[in-house]
């Protein structure tokens, strides 16, 4: 699904036989419901006008339409009046396409694109406050270094590590340090950008 309102309904049913006189003796196959496909993680990029309440509109719409957002990251773009949201959610392709179409109905939404199947760069940042005693600090620091984490705060009894990577990489890092004890964890949610020279922001007709 892209923001182009001309493309939609990508899931046609198998062609039903053209029946001039429906046979009375055999029950027809049940009509398939939209969606019902395999659930997977999707990443939507929404380019929106930077107006008060736009985040509320997006969040409210997703709630009202029964979509559960896994993560949501919002920031300005290079243009002051335009913001960009990266939304990750789980659902089958048709359901997520429906979510994208519903988002597109919002007046402040300029473009919505499902980049799940496109080659992208995905990054997420996490800050993890890990319990570190005198006895195991060296061990923790070694682990952090091997995981390409960065220590941003050292204190008596704990360290704060900044980890950057894909959602999976951060999951793995968090699992790794959990044995030492996680005192606090905060994650930004994924931000994503398509590889190559194409630009979703330039594609918007202004």
């Amino acid at each position: 699904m892209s923001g182009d309102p001309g493309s939609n309904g990508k899931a046609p049913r198998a062609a039903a036989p053209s029946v001039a006189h429906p046979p009375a003796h055999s029950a027809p196959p049940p009509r398939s419901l939209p969606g019902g496909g395999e659930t997977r993680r999707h990443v939507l990029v929404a380019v929106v006008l930077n107006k008060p309440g736009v985040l509320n509109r997006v969040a409210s719409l997703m709630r009202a339409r029964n979509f559960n957002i896994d993560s949501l990251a919002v920031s300005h773009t290079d243009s002051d009046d335009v913001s960009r949201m990266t939304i990750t959610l789980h659902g089958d392709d048709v359901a997520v396409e429906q979510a994208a179409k519903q988002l597109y109905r919002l007046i402040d939404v300029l473009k919505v694109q499902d980049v799940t199947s496109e080659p992208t760069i995905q990054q997420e940042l996490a800050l993890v406050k890990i319990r570190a005693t005198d006895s195991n600090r060296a061990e923790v620091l070694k682990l952090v270094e091997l995981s390409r984490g960065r220590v941003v705060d050292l204190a008596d009894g704990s360290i704060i590590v900044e980890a950057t990577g894909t959602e999976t990489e951060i999951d793995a890092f968090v699992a790794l340090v959990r044995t030492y004890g996680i005192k606090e964890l905060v994650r930004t949610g994924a931000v994503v950008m398509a590889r190559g020279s194409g630009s979703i922001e330039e594609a918007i007709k202004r």
Partner: protein
Amino acid sequence: MTITRGDPAHPPSPVEDAAAAGRSPARRSHVPNDGSADAAAVERARKAMLHEARDLKRTRIGADVVCEALLRQGVDVFFSYPGGVILPLYDVLGDYPELRHVLVRHEQGGAHAADGYARVTGRVGVCMGTSGPGATNLVTGIGTALLDSVPMVAITGNVPSALIGKDAFQEIDINGITLPMTKHNYLVRDADDLPRVIAEAFHIARTGRPGPVHIDITKDALQQETRAEHPSEAEVVAGLPGFRPNLDGHGRQLKLAAAEIASAKRPVILAGHGVLHAQAWDDLRAFAEKTQIPVAWTLLGIGVIDEAHPLAYGYMGMHGWKHVNRAIQSADLLIAIGMRFDDRVTGNVRTYAPYARIVHVDIDPAEIGKNVAVEVPIVGDAGRVLRALTPMVAAVDPATRAEYFDQLADWKADSIASSWHGSGAWRDGLLSADYVIERIGELTDHEATYVADVGQNQMWLARYTGFRHPNSHVSSGGLGTMGFSVPAAMGAALGRPDRETWAITGDGGFQMTSQELMTLVADHIPVKIALLDNKKLGMIRQWQEIIYGGNYHSASLPGPDFAKLADAYGIPAFRARTPGDVDDAIRSAQAVDGPALIWFEIAEEQNVFPMMPAGKGLSDLIEKWGGADE
């Protein structure tokens, strides 16, 4: 028949009282360009507003901007109720006599009136209220407009901006409340923003898929001095880069649709509200005639085609005609135009139209593939798509569809014979609601505007009136708002004063908004109210009888003496208890110059058949229940 008051030929109407008091008894017409003095005054004011702000002998404030903007949009009437924070607007209203203000008796009535006005005129309806309870009272009407895609602008006052978020008197987060139930909404704290916001609101409300837009204006913005100028339509469009509805169907999709139509043997057109919004009834008829495809319609699609047209097949869905649902269930192609496969239309989607491929035309891409998967999606305006598609399809000789048409005709004859007056009412000599509706249709020559409430009365009206004109039927379909009919009829009567306006309501819905009777009287709005009183919540009783094993909790609904109630408001009332009373009562109400009420005491336990139980499919219709005659 009992006439409670006066002589039906010369009822003492409030209009005469007004004349006696020296006021003009003439009803004001607000139809643009109809040649009347009122319409000309509005048009003059609108043109003046297009060029410059009115020459005021005082400071121009935000409230003036609101009035100017309304006039520029061609608004001639709006429905409102005053309150503390919207008083600055009322303070300047006197300077804009071309704007007719209808003082409703409850904000919900105002919202429904704006809705009814919009549905019969195709123009944007406007309602207003104050902050807090005034605003929350509008909410039901805004929701009704959203679910039925009705163009509406609702304006509320809010507390001064310095008090926002302080739980001030009559402060509620109305912007947060209307956010999920409007097409768009605004909170304005600065009068300089008002010209742009109001122009955007009207543009959004009426463009693409129509819908309600809510504007919340703080009291200080209404009072603030401003020199802000009104934007042009081009500036409005340029300022809304995220709002570019796709109006023309994609050429490739149109070709696919034409191919489907060429190969279909048992096609059916499913026409909905979108055809009326697009004013595409002539395009639809031309398309249907060329392709010789029968037309079925949704509840809100009533009026897309003259029911007397040979290709007009009928009303579909849960309480639709059996023959229509049979045609859909056996169709090999459904051409759905401006409808959204609501659950009341499809029933269980798994068993819906099992042999059919589907071409779905809708202006809202989100509607396509939402409830049913379709083979050919076309995003576009119903009229533009039909005008593009019709030249692409071959003219079909009706003789080639003879076998199909014969079967459709057989089904129709069978369906009408089995469900006509399908209740025990006749057997017992009681008044049957379907008979009442049929007589109202006949005696108004099918030329009136008919406004339904919700429940059994709504289904009887949809089935038995015989609609012959677009926008002659007004009904709360999506939200199913009881209490809709009387206030919506009020707006409909003002929007189309050239047609008689009938509100068809049940005793339940009527009791929800009967306070608007006073508005009808005070503003001389000639709505004829047909009150179908079965002393029950009829649809609730029907469900309890059939689905809940006869557990009639709260189905019985005692009401007042409705004739005395009408009389108290100064509205002539007529009463009909037997089939013999019906015609006299209708004619008497028609003879009244002004609002009138007919109290039809119908059979208490009449059901609407056929009925598709919730969760079942279109092939699972219940056609009778209980006694053999029912």
